[in-house]
């Protein structure tokens, strides 16, 4: 019986394999294209890394040394000793990204839970209303937000970046998806045990939403860590600036920028992203694809 059901299956496979055999050149083609593309993607990053380790005098040397002969790790200290307060940029970015992420995790999980699991009049209409606002580009709202912050004397404070980012429509949408997948029986059982809505949320929904919270956390943290547009608008003094601003400063009109020092600074800025990516990449990729596709 088993043999019978198996036979046609393997026979089918055999046909496919045979039909692919004469197409062997396609494998060579696909591997060559993929390898070439991977090289093109990795080379600028490798250049950044090797330049960051080169002696300052060799920064512009051609042909570039793809592997430095003497590894100047002390270049990584140079940004901290430059004429801009690099360590402050780092801490500012960390603070803004951490507080923003924390705020969104709370506000988005609460709203996402309500839209997914609670019934109240106007729920679907309100949700549609939120979603529609995703079409509004940030450049339209930023002008009144700036004027508001100017009125409140909050320009050139971190609050001007953090406050507007404490909520996220995308985040609500993402968390709603995760809460929707949970089995209703769990919540019915909690109700029978006399749990209120707050307890159901805190003790049942949130612990089960770990992957969702982590996804939102990583996306938000990375977006804030990398954010430039609003920082450029709101933060004007050096001691308030974020890392992307600081590095642009290090390179740009300051021209203190020896490529080796600038690349070391960029390396330091990318390092947290790289670490998270290496630890959790398979899972980030899966989550991003899934949330993206359904978004």
């Amino acid at each position: 019986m088993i043999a019978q059901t198996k036979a046609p299956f393997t026979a089918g496979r055999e046909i496919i394999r045979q039909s692919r055999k004469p197409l062997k050149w396609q494998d060579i083609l696909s591997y060559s294209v993929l390898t070439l593309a991977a090289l093109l993607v990795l080379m600028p990053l490798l250049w950044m890394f090797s330049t960051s380790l080169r002696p300052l005098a060799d920064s512009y040397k051609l042909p570039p040394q793809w592997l430095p002969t003497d590894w100047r790790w002390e270049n990584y200290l140079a940004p901290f000793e430059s004429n801009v307060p690099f360590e402050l940029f780092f801490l500012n970015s960390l603070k803004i990204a951490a507080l923003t992420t924390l705020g969104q995790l709370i506000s988005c999980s609460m709203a996402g839970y309500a839209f997914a699991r609670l019934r109240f009049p106007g729920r679907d209409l309100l949700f549609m209303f939120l979603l529609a606002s995703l079409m509004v580009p940030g450049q339209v709202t930023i002008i009144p937000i700036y004027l508001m912050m100017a009125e409140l004397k909050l320009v050139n404070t971190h609050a001007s970046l953090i406050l507007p980012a404490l909520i996220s429509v995308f985040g609500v949408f993402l968390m709603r998806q995760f809460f929707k997948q949970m089995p209703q029986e769990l919540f019915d059982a909690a109700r029978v045990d006399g749990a209120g809505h707050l307890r159901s949320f805190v003790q049942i929904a949130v612990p089960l939403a770990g992957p969702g919270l982590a996804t939102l956390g990583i996306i938000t943290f990375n977006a804030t860590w990398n954010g430039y547009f609003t920082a450029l608008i709101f933060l004007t003094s050096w001691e308030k600036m974020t890392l992307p601003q600081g590095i642009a400063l290090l390179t740009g009109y300051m021209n203190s920028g020896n490529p080796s020092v600038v690349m070391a600074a960029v390396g330091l800025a990318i390092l947290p992203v790289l670490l998270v990516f290496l630890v959790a990449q398979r899972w980030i990729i899966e989550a991003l694809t899934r949330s993206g596709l359904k978004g």
Partner: protein
Amino acid sequence: MLSPKRSEALAGYLFILPTFIGFAIFILYPLVESLRISFYEYSILGDSYYVELDNYSRLISDSRLRKTYGNTIVFTGFAVFFNAGIGLLLAVFLNRRMPVLMRNFYRSAFFFPILIAHTYIAVIWQYLYQQDTGVINYYLSFLGVDPIPWLSHPAWAMAAIIIMDVWKNTGFAMLVFLAGLQSIPHEYYEAAQLDGANERQLFARITIPLLSPSIFFILVIFMIGALQVFDSIIVLTDGGPGDATRSVVMYIYQQAFQRLDFGYAAAVSWTLFLVIMAVTLVQFLVSRRWVHYE
């Protein structure tokens, strides 16, 4: 004591309250306010004057605005085409039979640049693009290519921005397409092959139709993103040479935050909003004809 139904409704409203407070203050109010400001000659220090449609009639005669829209459209067209096209090509190749380890390596390599800030990428590429000391011209010289003025010539500067954008973003398209390809049931291909279909027919009749939701999603997302391009350009070329690579958002930024002409900047930002809305709606309407949802 509230009835269960009422307490559930109350809980619902309380749970969405933080989001809606933020939504009202930082999205809804600014949206309405920016429309109002666009009818004013707005001053942050002195008096503001209601100027009716002056800001909007200025739009029509503003040659710099026309230039920045032209640049943005050129950038959007090329960036979306190459990001989606190369992403699809890579995804199709990655979806072929190969060791899992290899596939994961390629996928990670293509994906990683997405996570890095545009600012940092532009800083790196600024050095690579240098005419005399840059690595790119150095290697091109072996192919007999004369040094290209990547950042100082209008057309090359635009090309430089597009290449860098594709380098960074095509991995996201690849990722979405690969997920779409992997969700196509193998039986479809097997059945078609038994019926004698060749690889090209399989691609045109099965892969593309079943991948159309992913393609549609990528086109919408990339187009909206490209129309708002800012970070990468401001660091790489600062809109130059001249206005050759200045985008609409950079123009809004300049008018609002460097010239403090908030009323006019608000009017320009509303044109961008309308363009984005129009592009999205048109795509949704057109998609009914070619996107197949299962």
